[in-house]
C-alpha cells in the first residue's frame, strides 16, 4: 500500500517531461479514481477544452497486468463535446503497455508546434515530428507509426487519431491498436488540439510480483482465471460477442431503427450477431491480459474488377457499432454495415455518435428541415454509399452544416430545427431503447453512457416504474462500476469480479484495503467525479430529453412521460447531493 503512483508528465509545448509521484493510492485506487484525482491536480476548470494547458490523462489500475480482464485504460480530459470533465475507456494493449513502461498514468499537457508523435518506454521518451502525417487516415497512420520509436513489436500499444481528430470533431475518437478505441466524448479532438497524432507506449520493462505474497497471489489468479475460462461467466462475449443482443433487443421492441422511428424491424436477421458470425466472422482477438477474446473481426470482401478480382479488409464489429452504423441508419446488409464501420474507423470518428448524428440528418432531410444544399449528398435510410460520402464530409467539415453536425446532432438541430427527433441524451444515444430508466440514466449518467448504471437491465424488470427502486438500482450499479473502473477492469468481467473477489485480488498483491476502506474510497471517488463534472458545467436541469424518446414504443408500451420526468428530477437531486460531499483541495475552488 505504500507505493506511490508514478506518473509521466509530458509538456508538448516545451518538449520536456518529468516523472512525478503521488502518495494517494489509498484514496484514488487507480483507473477512474486516479484519472479524476490527476485531473483536479492538472486541469484548469475554467479554461476551454482545447486550451493547451488542459491535460490529456491515461490511467491504469492497481490490478493491471496482474489479473485477467484487468485490461482497460481510462482516458480523461475536458470534453470538447460539452465542455465538461469526461472519461473514456479503451483496451487493446494500452493498459499492459503502460504498466510495463513502468507508469500508473500519463499526463500530456501543452500543444506541440507541429504534428507530433509521443513515444515512450521504461527508459526512453521521444517527441517526434510527424507533420507529414497531416490528414492521414487511421490505417496509413498506424503503418507509419509502427516504424517510429520506440520499436518494440508485440509489446507496445499505438494510439492514433485520424482526420476527424485533427479537425477537432467533438466526437472524434482515438484508435487503439487498430481495433479498439477511446470513443464518444472527443478524446481524439483533444489530441488534435494538442497536435498529437499518435502515442506509442512501449511495455519493455519487468516488474516484481507482490513481495512475500506470491503463493497467495498465484492462488487468487488461478481461481479468477478458471472462473473466466471455465465457468461460462463471460462466454457470451467470445462466442457471438455483444452482437448477440441484436435479435433479443429487436424482439423486445427496444432496438433503435431509422433514427428511432421504430424499435423493431423484420429485417433484423440480415444484421444480427448470428448473421455476422456465420457469414463474415474472420476471427476473434483479445485485449492484452484477457483470455476472453471479445473483439470480433469481420471480413469485408469487395469485387473491384470485371473479372473475379477481389480485395479484402478486416473490420472489427460489436453490438454498439452495428447499431450506430446499422439499424439506426436503416442498413439491412451486414457487408453494408462493415463498409460503413471501415469508413468511420479510417476517419477516426466515434461510430455511435456519427451514426446517430447522420440518422438525425437523414430524417431532417426527409422532413425538409434541411436541404440537399446542406447535406451535399442525398441521405436516405439504407443507402450505404450515401453515408460513406456523408462521413467524409462530416470528418472533413466540408460545409457549415457538417461543421455544426460535428458538434452533435442537437447542436445542429438547435440551428436548423428538428430538435424533437434528435436522439441525444447528454450525447448521441446508445443502442438501447428499453425505456424511461435507461433514457434518464444516459441523459444524466456520468459518461452519458449505457455503462454508467446499466439501467437498460432495470427497464426489463417487473418493478421498472418504481422511482425509488430505480434510483437504488442505478446507485448500486454505479458504485460497483466505479470500483471496477478504478481497478481498471473490463466491465465484461462483472460476473468474474464481484466486490469480494476484487478485494481478495487487491489484498493478494499487498494492497491491504479492508472492505470498509474500499467502500469509503469508492464513495469518495464517486463524489469527486460528480463534483468535477458539476464544477465544469454539468447542469442536469439543462439536459433535454427530446420528444422522440417520449414517443417510443417498447414491449412495455409507450414511454410514460410522467414517470420519466419525475425520475429525472429525483435523480438530479441525488447527483447534486453526491457532488456536494467532495471538497476540492487544489484546483477547483468550491463555488
Amino acid at each position, binding site marked *: 500500500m505504500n507505493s506511490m503512483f508514478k506518473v509521466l508528465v509530458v509538456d508538448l509545448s516545451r518538449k520536456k517531461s518529468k516523472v512525478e509521484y503521488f502518495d494517494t493510492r489509498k484514496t484514488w485506487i487507480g483507473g477512474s479514481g486516479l484519472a479524476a484525482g490527476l485531473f483536479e491536480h492538472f486541469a484548469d476548470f475554467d479554461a476551454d477544452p482545447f486550451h493547451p494547458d488542459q491535460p490529456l490523462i491515461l490511467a491504469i489500475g492497481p490490478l493491471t497486468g496482474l489479473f485477467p480482464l484487468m485490461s482497460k485504460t481510462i482516458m480523461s480530459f475536458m470534453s470538447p463535446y460539452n465542455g465538461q470533465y469526461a472519461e473514456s475507456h479503451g483496451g487493446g494493449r494500452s493498459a499492459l503497455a503502460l504498466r510495463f513502461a513502468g507508469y500508473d498514468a500519463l499526463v500530456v499537457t501543452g500543444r506541440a508546434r507541429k504534428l507530433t508523435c509521443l513515444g515512450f518506454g521504461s527508459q526512453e521518451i521521444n517527441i517526434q515530428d510527424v507533420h507529414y502525417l497531416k490528414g492521414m487516415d487511421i490505417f496509413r497512420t498506424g503503418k507509419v507509426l509502427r516504424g517510429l520509436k520506440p520499436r518494440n*513489436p508485440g509489446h507496445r500499444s499505438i494510439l492514433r487519431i485520424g482526420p476527424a481528430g485533427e479537425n477537432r470533431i467533438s466526437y472524434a475518437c482515438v484508435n487503439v491498436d487498430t481495433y479498439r478505441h477511446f470513443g464518444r466524448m472527443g478524446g481524439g479532438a483533444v489530441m488534435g488540439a494538442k497536435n498529437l497524432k499518435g502515442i506509442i507506449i512501449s511495455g519493455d520493462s519487468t516488474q516484481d510480483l507482490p513481495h512475500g505474497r506470491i503463493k497467495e497471489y498465484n492462488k487468487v489468479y488461478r481461481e479468477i*482465471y478458471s472462473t473466466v475460462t471455465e465457468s461460462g461467466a463471460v462466454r457470451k462475449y467470445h462466442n457471438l460477442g455483444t452482437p448477440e443482443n441484436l435479435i433479443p433487443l429487436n424482439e423486445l421492441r427496444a432496438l433503435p431503427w431509422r433514427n428511432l422511428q421504430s424499435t423493431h424491424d423484420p429485417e433484423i436477421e440480415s444484421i444480427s450477431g448470428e448473421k455476422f458470425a456465420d457469414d463474415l466472422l474472420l476471427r476473434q482477438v*483479445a485485449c492484452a491480459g484477457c483470455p476472453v477474446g471479445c473483439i470480433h473481426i469481420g471480413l469485408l470482401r469487395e469485387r473491384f474488377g470485371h473479372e473475379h478480382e477481389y480485395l479484402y479488409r478486416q473490420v472489427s464489429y460489436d453490438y454498439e457499432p452495428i447499431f450506430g452504423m446499422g439499424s439506426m441508419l436503416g442498413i439491412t446488409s451486414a457487408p453494408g454495415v462493415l463498409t460503413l464501420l471501415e469508413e468511420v474507423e479510417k476517419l477516426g470518428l466515434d461510430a455511435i455518435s456519427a451514426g446517430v448524428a447522420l440518422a438525425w440528418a437523414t430524417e431532417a432531410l426527409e422532413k425538409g428541415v434541411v436541404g440537399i444544399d446542406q447535406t451535399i449528398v442525398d441521405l436516405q435510410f439504407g443507402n450505404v454509399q450515401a453515408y460513406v460520402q456523408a462521413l467524409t464530409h462530416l470528418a472533413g467539415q466540408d460545409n457549415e452544416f457538417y461543421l455544426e453536425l460535428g458538434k452533435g446532432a442537437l447542436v445542429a438541430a438547435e440551428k436548423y430545427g428538428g430538435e424533437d427527433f434528435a436522439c441525444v441524451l447528454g450525447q448521441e444515444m446508445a443502442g438501447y431503447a428499453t425505456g424511461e430508466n435507461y433514457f434518464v440514466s444516459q441523459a444524466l449518467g456520468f459518461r452519458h453512457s449505457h455503462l454508467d448504471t446499466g439501467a437498460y437491465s432495470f427497464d426489463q424488470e417487473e418493478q421498472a416504474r418504481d422511482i425509488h427502486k430505480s434510483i437504488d438500482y442505478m446507485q448500486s450499479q454505479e458504485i460497483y462500476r466505479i470500483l471496477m473502473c478504478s481497478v481498471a477492469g473490463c466491465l465484461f468481467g462483472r460476473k468474474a469480479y464481484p466486490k469480494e473477489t476484487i478485494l481478495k485480488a487487491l489484498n493478494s498483491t499487498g494492497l491491504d484495503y479492508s472492505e470498509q476502506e474500499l467502500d469509503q474510497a469508492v464513495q469518495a471517488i464517486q463524489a469527486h467525479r460528480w463534483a468535477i463534472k458539476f464544477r465544469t458545467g454539468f447542469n442536469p436541469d439543462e439536459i433535454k430529453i427530446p420528444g422522440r424518446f417520449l414517443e417510443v414504443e417498447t414491449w412495455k408500451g409507450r414511454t410514460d412521460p410522467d414517470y420519466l420526468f419525475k425520475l429525472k428530477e429525483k435523480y438530479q437531486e441525488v447527483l447534486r447531493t453526491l457532488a456536494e460531499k467532495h471538497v476540492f483541495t487544489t484546483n477547483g475552488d468550491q463555488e
Partner: protein
Amino acid sequence: MKILKPSNMKRCIGCYSCSLACARNVHKSLSWKRSGIRIHSSGGISTGYEATVCLACDPPPCAPVCPTEALRPRKGGGVIFKEKLCIHCGECATACPVEAIYFDPVKKIPVFCIHCGRCVSFCPHDCLEMAEPSKEDGNE
C-alpha cells in the same frame, strides 16, 4: 522428452496469457519480456500473431558459444542453464537463429523456454502443446 510447440498459432487471439504465466510461474515476475514464450504480431494485429520460443534445436547453437558452459544441451533438444556459471556476456542470445533467447537487461541473464509446459494450460485456444520432437524439430 517432450518439447513446447506453438502448433496452432493461427488460433491465437493475442491475450498474452501464456507469456504472463511463464513470467509469473517460472521467472517470478510480471512481464511481457522475461518469459520463455513471447507473443507478437508482425506488422499490426491484422496480420495475426506469432510465438517466439525455443525450437529445442538438437544440437543447440547457443550452447557451444557459451564460454563458461553455463548453457548445456538438454536431452531431447534445447538447453539447460546454470546461472552460477554465467558471466553475463550475452553470446547465447546473439547465437540463437530465431531470437528465442531474451537477454534480460536487469538480471543480465538469458531468458528462454525450458520446455516445462506451464504456459500450455493458460492458452484459451489450445495454440500450444507439449509434444515429442519430430525430425524437423532438430537441426539434424
